[in-house]
């Protein structure tokens, strides 16, 4: 090979150029991430104090106040979503991992993948006409149900993937001792995969905690504390939206503070999920 030939130089030049473009693309993609983090941190930090977590929003014109009702509301909604979404998701995931070769199982897997691409606002519409129209009022229950629908495919697929990672020899050992198949699955396979599944569920919680669109006409909003699960309920995400599009300076400040709380929660969940997975892999 003639290392000095024009072709050689051209080929290696192209190689260099394309490789730099790929690096550049990656850097460009990360600029918005850091910009968002910077803005939320700088503008939100001023609004974070004890009042933010304990007080109700003040009426327009009065400064101060907090979003205690929205913090509580988000916790309530995510809790309900977990209650409705996690058990069916885990059971469906077990089915896919254990009996996953039938046509039916393939259809379920496919439906779960397709469902994770369904726009969250249409899930809101669905729950509206199913729950809100029937009960004639907005409620935390409806909001939690909408979020649970979004969680379901994520939990299902994570459970399936993690159960499949458990070595088959564990099951064989259990079956060899005369344990029925279902107990082997629950007591041996599921228990072994549980930490990983918990991390996956954590990620899906992080994902739905920031969802806004499905809550707009299910949980709606509330300027006051809501008791129980049968009332319209405030959430951080919906409040960020309503405050951001309002014309009031004070409300904008509150929106940034809420965004900081929400973003930090989501980031902490994501980073710790990653950390947990890494240490588990290393320990193996």
């Amino acid at each position: 090979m003639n290392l000095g030939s024009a072709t050689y130089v051209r080929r290696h030049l192209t190689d260099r150029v394309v490789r730099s473009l790929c690096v550049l693309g990656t850097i460009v993609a990360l600029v918005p991430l850091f910009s968002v983090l910077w803005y939320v941190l700088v503008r939100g930090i001023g609004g974070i104090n004890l009042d933010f977590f304990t007080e109700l929003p003040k009426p327009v014109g009065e400064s101060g106040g907090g979003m205690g009702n929205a913090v509580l509301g988000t916790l309530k909604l995510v809790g309900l979503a977990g209650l409705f979404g996690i058990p069916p998701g885990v059971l469906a995931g077990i089915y896919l991992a254990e009996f996953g070769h039938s046509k039916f199982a393939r259809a379920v897997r496919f439906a779960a993948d397709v469902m994770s691409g369904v726009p969250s606002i249409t899930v809101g519409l669905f729950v509206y006409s199913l729950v809100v129209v029937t009960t004639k009022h907005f409620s935390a229950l409806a909001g939690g149900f909408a979020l649970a629908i979004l969680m379901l495919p994520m939990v299902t697929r994570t459970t399936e993937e993690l159960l499949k990672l458990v070595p088959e020899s564990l099951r064989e050992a259990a079956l060899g001792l005369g344990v029925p198949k279902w107990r082997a699955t629950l007591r041996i396979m599921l228990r072994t995969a549980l930490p990983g599944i918990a991390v996956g569920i954590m990620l899906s919680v992080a994902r739905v905690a920031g969802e806004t669109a499905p809550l707009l006409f299910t949980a709606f909003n509330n300027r006051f504390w809501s008791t129980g699960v049968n009332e319209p309920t405030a959430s951080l995400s919906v409040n960020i939206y309503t405050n951001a599009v309002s014309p009031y300076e004070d409300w904008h400040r509150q929106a940034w503070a809420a965004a900081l709380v929400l973003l930090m929660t989501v980031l902490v969940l994501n980073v710790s999920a990653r950390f947990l997975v890494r240490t588990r892999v290393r320990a193996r």
Partner: protein
Amino acid sequence: MTVRSDVSLVRPRSKLQLMLGREANFGDLAFRRITALFAGSVIVLLLWMAWEMGLASRLSLAHFGLGFITSTDWDPVRDQYGGLPFVYGTVVSSLVALVIAVPISLGIAIYLSELAHPKLRGPMGFLVELLAAVPSVVYGLWGIFALAPWLRESVEPLLAKTLGFLPLFQGPQHGFGMLAGGIILAIMITPTVSSVSREVLRAVPAALREGAIGLGATRWEVVRVAVLPYAKSGLVGAIILGLGRALGETMAITMVIGNRSEIAASLFAPSYTMASVIANEFTEATGQLYLAALAEVGLLLFGVTVALNVFARLLVWRVGKMPEGGQL
């Protein structure tokens, strides 16, 4: 000859077991049936959503028929509803997003799966995926107070000056509009497109790369002649999945696109998307026909995204299943 070992060798089965089917153990059977029930609920839920939305929009479907998608007249006061401006806004903003996001995402996928130092791959991939973790409404907030002002003051004047001869870059510069919407969608779909593309590239057999390296190819040539042709359909699938996300994205784009139901050639002009009109008007909609029309917009959105997802998943699955060295 087939031998049902569980029947012939183990103790004889009770009448109940025989009645219930082929499982040897009642617990196993119950376990299988119960988990199957929940697995089936995923399919049921998907079909139920389609059914329920069809039901909610039947008034509008009957009243406007196919004219709904071709009419630009959206006037709640006169009870006239045409969805074309929203379809237009959704399609164009998603296309703008794809134009920006696809080259960048493919660059990321190629960098992370083929070029980057193995120690860098994990952390960089994680950072890109964090882009997907930021809630949509936070992007929207950032869009209102950071992106839109920046577009208004720096980017749009520059585009108007250099490319202003194109109708795309003419007219008043608000910051809020199609361009802002497209950019924010691009940011949000980049992690989807790049991570699915990465998975697809990872499914390409190593032997193909080794063959190309053995022939003296540079690293880019390995990607171009060995990796990309094999991964092509999967990459198309990744892009379509990104498109599906862009079409259905709601909060961030609602906050920056300007929300005006007009069809304008300029990317600077405000627009409206299908998801945003539902988000903005649904809770305030009065009258059965108004609600039904909004539900029909939702049904349309649902139908299109489901169809795109089915198509894209099939493409992505195919790459994983291809025989080594096949399809070249």
